[in-house]
């Protein structure tokens, strides 16, 4: 559905760190979370797959579904990109 996974997703740094230090993984992607934001990691040990529905960015209340969908990235659906900004898409 998301295509072939990127190399980092299959590499030892991500596979070792995502479960023990998810905040560190997010920091590697430039996302620094405050301590009061809970992190929930899903280790897909079965054939079940998890896709993240990204958080709607501020200032997009009047956007169409199509315009919002254009903001969504692969990393946002993997869960390593939290911030989607209208600037990123344009």
């Amino acid at each position, binding site marked *: 559905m998301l295509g072939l996974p990127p190399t980092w997703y299959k590499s*030892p740094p991500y*596979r070792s760190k995502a479960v023990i230090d998810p905040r560190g993984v997010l920091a590697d992607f430039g996302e620094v979370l405050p301590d009061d*934001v809970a992190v929930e990691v899903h*280790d897909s040990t079965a054939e079940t797959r998890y896709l993240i529905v990204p958080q709607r960015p501020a200032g997009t209340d009047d956007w169409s579904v199509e315009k919002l969908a254009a903001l969504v990235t692969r990393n946002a659906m993997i869960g390593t990109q939290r911030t989607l900004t209208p600037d990123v898409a344009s």
Partner: protein
Amino acid sequence: MNGGQDLGGMQGFGPVREEPNEPNFHAHWESRAMAMVVALGALGQWNIDQSRHARESLNPADYLTFPYYKIWVEGVEALMLKRDLVKTEELATGKQVASPPPDLPPALPKDKVWNALHALGGAADRPETSKPAFALGDTIKTIADHPAGHTRLPRYGRGKTGTITKILGHHVFPDSAGNDLGDDPKWLYQVRFSATELWGKDANPKDSVTLDLWEPHCVKT
């Protein structure tokens, strides 16, 4: 098995580095390796769990240093040798010395591989033959065995206390299917563990990890 694939919780590999505008493959042999693995899958001689077990049976030092698709090639070669579909000599020379078994279906032709790749991960759910032993909200403890064969319960999740958060269905049990013992379907659950239960006092108490685990991995507390 405690092989090179069971990486969760290891430390010291350094930061996750993203390659900008990464291509699907970094060398021609990688796309050929992937296509060959998919094409050979059409022979129907192994399931996804046996494929995983073949890859994780590599020497851990090799697993950690081989390129990703090299691991795939090593895995499929091991499966073919085990099924007597190829000889060591053939792998070494690239020349056929023995005929394939007469009842073997053909490998997928080149033009069918792309579609087959997208169909990978065929349904793992199986008809229900029992009722689930656990309910949402139940507290369970995971078993702490270290089987020499294939298991989907990673080391970091063994002997830990968690909560059933989803009943995912009645699925092929990889700890059976990956060890050549048949599908033996079992109930599959999503189980939530606090980060402090898994990783100790330095973890953020708000954080958690879920694992998808089969009934034989869990004991009611």
